């Protein structure tokens, strides 16, 4: 499902990485400034509308948050959190969606060739043609993003509007954002913008402001400015997300070893046969008297 303007940099379950071309494209990134996010959910519905998702069934449960978790039909969710802080309250909103990791755990975990691809511009996409809906990507993802769609039997998540991006447009969520807390551009530009905003926040009394671009997954295609970087849990963000060790282990160690072991067993059996030959009873007939040990043919 390579979008036609985009070469693939990495593809799931491919032995040599699966790169499709040599074009070098600038890596793109979303920028989220939670300190200017008002949780209006324009990004949520812009995503829904553009991607023709839904309807989803929600119910009022006593929160402004649309639903508890991302959903296969809902790829972009604002998480709301009220906390007491400095004698008052803070009401934090963070846009949750695929982080488009530089080193994507989903892609690492995916067993279906080409079902998860990373384009040259850094977008990580699920290819529904190739996806087998096994859910390994959900296990591989440190942000708990990919969701299984029961109707299609495929995994679903934010595509960073790859169809728009490859046509020269920005993702739907970014375009909709009324306050400008969402921005889109090259990763370098977004990181620079993030650092500038963090500096501004620090000067304005947010001593713990940070730019969240976790190195454990090689950085993300979504950089997030947080006013309270000392309380990542308020935003529902992991402190040091990584591709799970288990995924790394079974993908990089166990499976090659297993292949070697299986072929080794076969080779071992053949070798044994060549060396040892079959174990056969002596050709002399007649009733054995019993008790005496059988004779073993020797080479």
């Amino acid at each position, binding site marked *: 499902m390579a979008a036609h303007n985009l070469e693939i940099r990495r593809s799931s379950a491919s032995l040599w990485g699966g790169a499709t071309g040599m074009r070098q494209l600038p890596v793109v990134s979303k920028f989220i400034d939670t*300190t*200017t*996010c*008002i*949780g*209006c*959910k*324009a990004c*949520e*519905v812009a995503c*829904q*509308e553009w991607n023709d998702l*839904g*309807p*989803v*069934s*929600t*119910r*009022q*449960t*006593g*929160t*402004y948050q*649309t639903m508890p978790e991302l959903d296969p039909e809902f790829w972009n969710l604002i998480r709301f959190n*009220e*906390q*007491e802080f400095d004698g*008052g*309250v*803070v*009401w*934090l*909103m963070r846009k949750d969606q695929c982080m488009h990791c530089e080193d994507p755990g989903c892609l690492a975990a995916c067993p279906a060739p080409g079902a998860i691809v990373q384009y040259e511009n850094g977008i990580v996409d699920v290819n529904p043609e190739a996806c087998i809906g096994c859910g390994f990507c959900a296990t591989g993802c440190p942000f708990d993003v990919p969701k299984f769609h029961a109707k299609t039997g495929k995994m679903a998540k934010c595509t960073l509007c790859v169809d728009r991006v490859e046509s020269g447009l920005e993702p739907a969520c970014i375009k909709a954002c*009324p*306050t*400008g*807390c969402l921005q889109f551009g090259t990763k370098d530009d977004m990181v620079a913008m993030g650092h500038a*905003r963090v500096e*501004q926040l620090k000067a*304005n009394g947010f001593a713990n402001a940070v730019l969240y671009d976790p190195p454990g997954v090689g950085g993300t295609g979504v950089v997030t400015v947080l006013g309270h970087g000392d309380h990542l849990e308020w935003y529902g963000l992991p402190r040091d997300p990584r591709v799970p060790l288990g995924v790394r282990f079974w993908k990089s160690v166990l499976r090659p070893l297993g292949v070697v072991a299986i072929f080794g067993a076969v080779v071992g059996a053949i070798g044994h046969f060549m060396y040892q030959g079959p174990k056969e009873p002596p050709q002399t007939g007649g009733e054995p008297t019993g008790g005496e040990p059988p004779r073993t043919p020797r080479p």
Partner: protein
Amino acid sequence: MTNGWVDIKNADVILAMGGNPAENHPVGFKWFMEAKRGRNAKLCVVDPRFTRTAAVADVYAPIRAGTDIAFLLGLIRHTIENKRYHEDYVKIHTNAPYVIGEKFDFNDGLFAGFDEGKGEYDKTLWGYEAGAKGGAYKVDPTLEDPRCVFQLLRKHVARYTPEVVEQVCGTPKDKFLKVADVVTSTGNAERVGTITYALGWTQHSTGVQMIRAAAMLQLLLGNVGRPGGGVNAFRGHSNIQGATDTAGTFEILPGYLKTPTGPLTNLKEYYESAIPTTLNKQTWPSMNYWVNYPKFMVSLLKAQYGNAATKDNDFGYQWLPKVDGNYSWMYIFDDMYRGKVMRAGAEEPGPEALITFGMNPVGLGPNSKKMVAALSKQKWMVVVENVETETAIFWKAPKEYEGPEPSQIPTEVFLLPAADFAEKDGTFTNSARWLQWKWKALDPPGRAKADQEILARIFLAVRDLYQKEGGALPEQLTNVSWSYTNPAEPDLAEVLKEMSGKALADVHDPADKAKVVKAAGQQLDGFGQLMDDGTTLCGNWLHSGVYTEAGNNAQRRSNADPTGLGMFHNWAFSWPANRRIMYNRASADANGKPWDPKRPGIYWNGQKWVGDVPDMKPDAPPGTYGAFIMLPEGVGRLFSSGLNDGPFPEHYEAVEAPIANPLHPNVTSNPAFKKFTSDKDVYGTKEEFPIVCTTYRLTEHFHYWTKHQVGGRLNELQPGFFIEIPEALAKEKGIENGSQVRVISKRGQIQGMAMVTKRLYPLKVDGKELWQIGFPIHWGFASEPGHTGPLANLLTPSAGDPNTWTPEYKAFLVKLEKA
């Protein structure tokens, strides 16, 4: 808005109060964030709830709903006592130096001239002191005369110390002082601040005075008329501004001309009543632009009555309906409910029928039970809508609305399907007064029709009946000019041309009578070309210039912004005269130099005013006229005799007051407020209903509209009604988040899901702990199935502001219990 949406990015300080712009105007709010990011502006939010706006604010101060005047007067006191006002500005652009007559005073909550019996003030006691020379008025440029506006104001607000603000508003003193410090930092030439508000101020029995207090503060800080400044009302509906400009309300004609009243029997009397006398003829004389009133009025009458309007018949003035008394919202339904009303000393029938285009009175009117009861008495009703609203099906309202059985309701209801916005063209006027054209994208579904076609067909059918059968004053209808190419489906571009105005005969240059400025039949360039002799036609003088010989200016689409201040003069058309910042003359000092050269509104270049379209005669040198050209004084009013409830704002409690007024317990609520007295209009006491309740909108829904969308995504974002309850109150009452609770006011009760939150907390008011709760409007009994809910207005009172007669939706008393 005095300024524009984009202009907010020019502010150094933004005070968002009486509104929740992040929630209700998110895209406009973009420019708040732009100011924060771009110039490190400080956003102060004062609100009963910790809102979405508060979530991104630099300073948040909680306040008890309905006490904003005390807070604002506290800010004014802080400004004056700490000398933080912009003195040069105050001296030349406000009436601070004007001396007030001896009759004015203020005692124990009442201004001079209150008539207990009528509940009204005699406003003539609030006049200026006449000066030595006739026609001029006494001013003290030093601001030291104890009777000058400045000193009177200083005395008036002296009571509003931070301690009193805390006592009345419940705002902790340190929070108040923080806000005061930031907001008053703009009282100089270098810095500018804006104040934004919305229905959180309007919908109070003291709403107009809240806005006035904000305007006064801005005048003192020298922020009116400047880029990045102003007092900015964020309007709620796409064309609520245009509907108001175009006389949607009973008291005005298009362009804010006054609706004639019974005693004004001819145009002359009407002009005498409507046109203010120029007050300031001494220094800084006022242009008093309303002297052009007859040009606007006659051009309007020519638009309405065409050739039937002649100089001899007062241009058809006698056919205009005249009013006696009040015909606004709450009166409509009160008169409908009672069936009769006293007018000019005699009984007249109330409305027996209602025609509503795209409006849902059962949903949005206060006191829903009274709304349903009133509508149940009508003979007929026409509802023109996209969807089946509560109003369309009031006759099958659920039993808690206490309406009669359908069989007992005699109303014939016509429900006519209308086109959506995308299915017709025409202009909307935004909150910043921009008229923007939209193009038609597709046809209406099924047999639905555009509203203008429905309206036109009804009008033509009625006119036919009168032409055939005669009846009561047929001329009122038959003389109406309806000269559209297709009368049954008027082309909106033709209508816009009519509104913008054209020459009926050659229009000559006033300076050179031989020179023809506009030939007969041509579109006019602006209201400067309007004539009072019937040679021009103009449906709305404010809109004049929107459709000129150059074409439809509402369609202009250049977003070039050479000043960088976000004015966009070649994008669409902004009334008046494509001006982007009102009162922009005040952005410059006495010599016409901008207060802040980096943010000039207009400035005098030696020959003329340049920059924005000047709110001033373009070639009148500085000192010729005062900046506030529509006011007879020519300067901004810190003291005004124009309002019905006092020349200065004063803190009054809501109609349903949770405490006695700490400042004057004998006058707790606004003495002039409007309160209805039918059997459906009942009011609760603080003893029975101890909790203050407020209502609001959510960003995920639009009014009573989007809940109808079957399969609509907004119903996913906010699927149902809820009631926000402070954590501590919930704990006290044993209420769990997500459980069902009942909220009860004197007028009704509603049940809903509790949303227990930290974002509301108790306030210490007048020494006692006071709770506030609130819930969103939006839901009702006509919705997408599964998304119905109670109408918030089951609980709200029919009582409101004495100037605008807007109901007090934002502060009323309730009690809360577990369901």
